[in-house]
């Protein structure tokens, strides 16, 4: 009886909790219901366009995550350890893409790396390199909107590990890198994993910046969110959009589950 009471919310909170649950579950129920009811949706799910877009989405978002981890980890560690004037401003700048609407990110990327952009124009003139309309542009858009989630979480994780531990390991003969890998990394692992998952999910869902900066070309820049938008416009309309949404939802769930499993096991080993 008391166990049951502990599990049930207080009676006064039941209404807001129920409303919250209804609001967030109804859209998923709607997608599922449409997908099951509409026979055409199943055919759309295995169309060449859908599978190409899914493959592109999965590998570009993974690439964006890899770059975010490789470049973001040193930045996060430095921000967690260093003390300097204007550090708050640097941190705010890194967080900026989190609050920025992705369409602004797309326009901003275009003004920097577009063919007539700040860096894009010299790149084009001197090296003949154009980033727009390429898969690289997709990854850059995803990195821009996703990486701040990783850096933010990693910074908090590193800051939670007493710098004293690193110093002690160092004085005991471990190199600074070894101290970081054997002491700081295992202790901050949960934060890193959570940040990485957020970064990857944000990259997978990226639409606005990609559409503006990378364009929409099947097999090259048409990621799943763009394909869903395209399906919505096509004669197949909502049927195709529902099919692609379900496909991406399933892929995302599987990937996140795998991610949590791996990180939980690695975290268990390391700690």
């Amino acid at each position: 009886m008391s166990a049951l009471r502990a599990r049930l919310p207080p009676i006064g909170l039941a209404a807001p909790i129920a409303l919250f649950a209804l609001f967030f579950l109804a859209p998923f129920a709607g997608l599922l219901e449409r997908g099951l009811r509409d026979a055409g949706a199943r055919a759309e799910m295995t169309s060449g366009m859908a599978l190409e877009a899914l493959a592109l989405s999965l590998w570009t978002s993974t690439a964006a995550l890899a770059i975010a981890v490789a470049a973001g980890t040193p930045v996060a560690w430095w921000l967690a350890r260093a003390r300097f004037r204007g550090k708050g401003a640097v941190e705010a700048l890194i967080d900026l893409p989190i609050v920025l609407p992705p369409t602004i990110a797309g326009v901003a990327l275009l003004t920097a790396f577009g063919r007539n952009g700040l860096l894009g124009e010299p790149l084009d003139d001197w090296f003949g390199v154009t980033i727009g309309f390429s898969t690289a542009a997709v990854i850059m858009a995803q990195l821009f909107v996703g990486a701040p989630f990783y850096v933010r979480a990693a910074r908090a994780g590193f800051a939670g590990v007493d710098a004293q531990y690193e110093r002690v390991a160092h004085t005991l003969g471990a190199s600074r890198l070894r101290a970081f890998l054997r002491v700081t990394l295992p202790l901050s692992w949960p934060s890193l994993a959570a940040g990485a998952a957020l970064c990857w999910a944000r990259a997978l869902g990226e639409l606005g910046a990609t559409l503006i900066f990378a364009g929409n070309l099947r097999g090259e820049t048409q990621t799943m969110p763009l394909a869903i938008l395209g399906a919505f416009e096509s004669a197949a309309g909502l049927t195709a959009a529902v099919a692609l949404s379900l496909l991406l939802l399933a892929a995302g769930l599987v990937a996140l589950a795998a991610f949590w499993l791996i990180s939980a096991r690695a975290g268990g080993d390391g700690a």
Partner: protein
Amino acid sequence: MRPRAALAAAALMLAALAATAGACGGESRETVTVFAASSLTDAFTELGEAFEAAHPRAAARFSFAGSGTLRTQALEGAPVDVFASASPEEVEALADAGLVVEQRALAGNRLVVAVAEGAAIAALADLAAPGLRLALAAEAVPAGRYARRALALANGADGFPPDFAARVLANVRSHEPNVRAALARVELGEADAAIVYASDLARAGARVRAAPVPARFQAAADYRIALLREGDAARAFLAFAVSPEGAAILARHGFAPAGGTP
């Protein structure tokens, strides 16, 4: 102190709410919700102002997007009074679903090649040159369908190779969700050229030139306007759009006269 501040904030918010509610409810203007193809953005914005000036009791509000998106939204129950599409297919899809009360021919349009500053393109045939970066409206949007039809008509014609369309499509670097987005690529210099409507170029900046699409390849665009919900203001808007005054506004924005009523 704190509860009092919270109370003051709440009172302020209530006052603001009441003020906006008053602003909305105070006037007894009947609102017409119009879904219109992206290519109509400038023309219909002006048309809406002229309509409101002529009908002080009515107000028009617009949602501009690719005709395909608007069709899907209307099919899914979006509250639309009037739908203006760049091609008959979208209106027919709504008619099949029993959503169209009445439809009229609205306007015509021509295709042109929008060429970015500095790009070596003088005619339609030049679009097949390897290495060009083209933007095209997606096949799901009317402008994209018309453009593909024109390219197919040019296949093997005088001065065009038999695989002209395939060569041009191989140069397409982005399939844009609407025709205005394709033009924007050219204006930004991201793409060398795009196939757009003549009316789109009527407002484009100095960074874009027009190269003609020959008349024999023109797949004449056929704009339709449909009444989706019965209402005095909605009917008045439809009548105004196809009136001589409405036609004059559309002509000023580069549209051709309607081919005839269906």
